[in-house]
């Protein structure tokens, strides 16, 4: 795994009254153990990967407590695992990246929510929304609405997050509804502290097994006629129970403020940002107090109509602050007020953006718009106007100082990445045969959509690359190339892509990037990894799997061999073979490899054993500064610098120290017939006797010849 969680694991052991210091998402893991969960699982994805990573590293603690840990095959499997809480009073939690994970899980989620649970069931949902997000921009709210899940969006402070995890399980049990805990990107990575409780060993666990299964109960099955009763029960019993619990336990917070004729209803995760923006215009004290009354919704679904109506009563206007569209909360509040016959004006998306994260600036503008419209008694709007003018001046000055468009810096393939050369090969192939439809997928390989490759026509989801080419292939004279990572292959690409195409006799070319990890999410193990969390190989092999499915055209190519990759792709595109053609592009994730090698090399050097290290370089005198090599390689360690030759104005290509000597520079220069300025330099520590003699001989002989 990318990070070692040794420090964090120590924190999971903390007992009552000790202070936890660390990241929000690790605090959630600790809160799960304090809540007495029987089982946890999930599928990795930013920003909640760490909740699983840290628990995997803490397997001994889990075993002591009797908690079962499952690294699920995908989110559907994780959601289905929560089914354990339908029949048994066990608490369980699973994590995934929303909204993509929720989509994959949706079938199981609906079937979980219909009968409901008797043990608390919680989904830790990484709200990958706004700045830094890597997926389609949708919100989880719709899932809560349609399936009847309780939705928690905790205020961004560790004590609140931990409390709401604990209360969340109780809420789930009080209402029989599964609960979703939304963790925003910034909350997941937030550093803070809270006072711990002891971990709780679950009453039912791997150390305290049940003697008998639960009795047969039709109402626990999501099958008609039970489903009709379940739908009714959701509406008439479970949601009201959830609302009661929210009020009784005080899960939502109300801040009194002196400007009583207005108010703000805000989702928990945004509350502190709003308070800070209010402080800027003299409406909050920075210590939790606000001059504007606020209703902070730590539970954003279900809303409690009585609570909303009571808050709004007597106010001329309220502002609803919720990110994304549609404006679910604003709509509900309007209905609640209409039914309660209250005339309070509801502002929201009229002054705040409908799309995107509510940054400080978006909130400043929204609050200003609200205050201008509402004109609260006892507040001078000059503070708003002068703050707005100040910011406008600052922004103008910034743009004047840097009056050019700065190039973006999206994530890219790492130095030495085994996937990058595959895209170099595709580009070279395109020079020969023309442009090709590339069905892209989710994973590190999606970065090929950025410069210098700009390869990829569509992205339809994780493992969906091949499936998304199903109706493209029959319509094109040139076969499309579908990309899939090994992560995507096991997640669902095997079924939706490979089996689907094989079954339908599709004629696509599939490139599977076999790098041994789900790399983009932090190098978690896969079924086909060379090792696993059990310190033994996963035992599943992509090639053998494909052979078993009867894939007739199957090649494995080492990714760094660009010429061979081009030749293999050429053959795949041209062969008369009708049917799926699969190329397994094999190369270990370079980040993982370097981490492993660093330790091995240090050990070998210590023992006096031979270690060879290669690096690539560019001869400045020979490079003419055209940068074709960069356009074909895209390696971070291949860059440009000012030409040392004072007669040349264009910068020269240059390989920086971070080069890991993967060989792609030479392969690209060779395969693309670029220029002779690349060289590979290999330094040998602790050389063998013959090797040292040979080096001495060559140096002397060359020295004599050169003289």
């Amino acid at each position, binding site marked *: 795994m990318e990070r070692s969680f040794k420090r964090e694991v120590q924190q999971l052991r903390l007992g009552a009254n000790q202070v936890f210091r660390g990241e929000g998402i690790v605090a959630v893991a600790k809160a799960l153990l304090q809540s007495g969960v029987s089982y946890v699982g999930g599928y990795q994805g930013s920003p909640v990967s760490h909740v699983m990573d840290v628990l995997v590293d803490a397997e001994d603690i889990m075993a002591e407590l009797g908690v079962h840990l499952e690294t699920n095959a995908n989110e559907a499997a994780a959601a289905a695992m929560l089914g354990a809480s339908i029949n048994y009073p066990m608490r369980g939690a699973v994590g995934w990246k929303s909204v993509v994970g929720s989509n994959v899980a949706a079938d199981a989620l609906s079937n979980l929510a219909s009968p409901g649970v008797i043990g608390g069931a919680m989904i830790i949902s990484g709200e990958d929304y706004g700045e830094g997000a890597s997926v389609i921009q949708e919100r989880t709210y719709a899932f809560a609405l349609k399936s009847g899940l309780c939705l928690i969006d905790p205020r961004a402070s560790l004590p609140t997050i931990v409390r709401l995890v604990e209360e969340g399980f109780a809420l789930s049990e009080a209402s029989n509804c599964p609960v979703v805990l939304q963790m925003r990107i910034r909350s997941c990575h937030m550093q803070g502290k809270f006072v711990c409780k002891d971990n709780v060993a679950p009453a039912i666990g791997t150390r305290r097994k049940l003697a008998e299964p639960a009795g047969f109960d039709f109402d626990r099955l999501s099958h008609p006629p039970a489903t009709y009763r379940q739908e009714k029960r959701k509406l008439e019993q479970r949601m009201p129970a959830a609302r009661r619990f929210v009020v009784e336990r005080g899960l939502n917070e109300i801040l009194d403020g002196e400007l009583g004729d207005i108010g703000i209803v805000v989702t928990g995760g945004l509350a502190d940002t709003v308070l800070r923006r209010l402080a800027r215009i003299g409406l909050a004290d920075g*210590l939790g107090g606000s001059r504007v009354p606020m209703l902070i919704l730590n539970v954003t679904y279900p809303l409690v109509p009585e609570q909303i109506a009571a808050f709004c009563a007597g106010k001329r206007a309220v502002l609803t602050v919720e990110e994304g569209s549609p404006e679910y909360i604003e709509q509900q509040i309007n209905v609640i007020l209409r039914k309660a016959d209250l005339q309070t004006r509801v502002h929201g998306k009229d002054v705040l953006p409908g799309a995107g994260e509510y940054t400080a600036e978006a909130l400043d503008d929204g609050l200003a718009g609200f205050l201008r419209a509402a004109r609260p008694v006892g507040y001078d709007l000059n503070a708003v106007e002068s703050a707005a003018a100040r910011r406008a001046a600052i922004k103008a000055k910034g743009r004047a100082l840097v009056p050019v468009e700065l190039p973006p810096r999206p994530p890219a393939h790492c130095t030495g990445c085994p996937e990058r050369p595959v895209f170099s090969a595709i580009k070279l192939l395109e020079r020969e045969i023309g442009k090709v439809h590339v069905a892209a997928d989710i994973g590190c390989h999606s970065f090929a959509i950025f410069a210098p490759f700009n390869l990829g026509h569509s992205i339809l989801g994780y493992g969906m690359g091949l499936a998304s080419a199903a109706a493209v292939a029959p319509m094109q004279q040139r076969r499309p190339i579908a990309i899939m990572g090994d992560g995507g292959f096991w997640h669902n690409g095997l079924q939706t892509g490979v089996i689907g195409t094989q079954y339908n006799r599709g004629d696509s070319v599939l490139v599977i990037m076999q790098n041994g990890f789900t790399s983009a999410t932090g190098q978690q193990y896969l079924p086909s990894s060379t090792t696993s969390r059990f310190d033994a190989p996963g035992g599943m092999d992509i090639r053998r799997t494909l052979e078993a499915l009867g894939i007739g055209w199957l090649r494995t190519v080492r990714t760094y061999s660009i010429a061979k990759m081009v030749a293999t792709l050429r053959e795949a595109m041209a062969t008369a073979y009708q049917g799926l053609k699969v190329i397994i592009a094999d190369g270990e994730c370079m980040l993982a490899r370097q981490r492993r090698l660093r330790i091995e090399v240090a050990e070998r050097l210590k023992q006096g054993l031979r270690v060879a290290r290669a690096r690539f370089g560019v001869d400045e005198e020979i490079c003419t500064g055209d940068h074709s090599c960069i356009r074909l390689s895209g390696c971070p360690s291949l860059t440009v610098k000012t030409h040392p030759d004072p007669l040349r104005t264009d910068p020269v290509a240059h390989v920086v120290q971070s080069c890991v000597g993967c060989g792609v520079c030479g392969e690209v220069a060779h395969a693309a017939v670029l220029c002779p300025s690349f060289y590979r330099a290999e330094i040998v520590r602790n050389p063998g006797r013959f090797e040292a003699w040979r080096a001495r001989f*060559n140096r002397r002989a060359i020295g004599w010849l050169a003289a």
Partner: protein
Amino acid sequence: MTPTTILIAAMGGEGGQVLADWLVLAAEAEGLAVQATSIAGVAQRTGATTYYLEMTPWPKDGRTPVLALNPAAGEVDVLVATELLEAARAVQAGLATAQRTTLITSTHRVLAMGEKIAMGDGRVDGAMMLRACREGAKRALLFDAEALMAADSAALNALMLGAIAASGTLPIAAERYEEAIRERGVAVEANLAGFRVGLEATRGGDAAAVADIRLPDSVEQVVALALPRLVDYQDQDYAALYRRRIEACGDLPEAVLREVARHLALRMSYEDIARVAQAKLRPERLARIRHELGAEDATPVRIHEFLKPGIGELCDMLPGFLARPILALARSRGWIGRAHCGMEIETTAIGGYLALAALAKTRRLRRWTHRYAVEQELIEEWLHAVRGAAALSPALAMEVAGLARLIKGYGDTHRRGLGNYRLIMDRLVLAALAGRAEPELAPRIARAREAALADPEGRALERALAA
């Protein structure tokens, strides 16, 4: 009560998370309320990442300060950037301001992909960014962390922590930072050393020195660089030819002549196999590579070259009467750009060395090669065109001289560049000199040249010539 706010702009893989951790630990040890968060991006390297921290004294009344997770324009006290463009990006967004912000940045560049893939020079103006950092901050602490990393093998994040401590802007005592490094427990000794290097280097304040290779600014300087280059390339006679050509252009305006002299030196030392072999064999080169690898005297170092001359390059070495029919045949059969002779030569082995030495020796025969004749003819045509253009206007002459920039590289790249050059020369320049002058010709040539460098497929050039 306003907390102290810190924004760190870094790139994946630079240790920004550990830097943020150190600041949190130091602030806590100082008894401050502190909160940090990040937009860390994904696991990959090189993407932009940001870390945001707020810290403030605990209130006496036992209440908890509200700390935010988002930076805001005009409200950052300390802006830390690990690279110049990321600092400039923050200045542009108004995150640093002259009223409030201490800006601490390394001045080295890690070029963005968009800057690297340009066929010419796509780099953002460094001087502009340095100026923006100085004028856009209350106090600027600029230093070259990359140089310190190379000199002291210090980690970037430790250097930045040292610079933060040196700035004295945060309400944290200096020794707290070292305690934080010890408590965090990552490569403690190395990071403590790096911290001290950063602290010392920036104690005196703004420490950025802009060392840029300046282009020679007079004709004499260019000629002084060109003559030894051409002697090395060919011989004294060849250098004399250069001098005669420059003298023949004596009527050109100084600025145009300087460009002509510069390009002429490059064009006359065109890259062929002999030139490449000559460059590969230089003893200084081997010494430089050994130094970069950190190889001590006895340590074996092996250097492999990747050469793949095609039919064109091989014919370049033959006399014209042999090269021309072969090239004609190759063109008709479509071998150009397809048939190559791939070689991997080890310069550090006696066999490879001798092979390269033999190739380098062929430069004696250069005057009799097909390529030599072609190049000299092109050069004469170009010089003639520049002189003709000068009669029309100095600006036009400048543009015609600058067209030489398009010819560079090897193989396909060279053919493409030469093709673009030929296209602009024929369609715009020679047409104008033949009396069919068009209005606004100089800017059109400039646009066409930029377009030729805009994309390798030549689409922009087609559009520019069609316009």
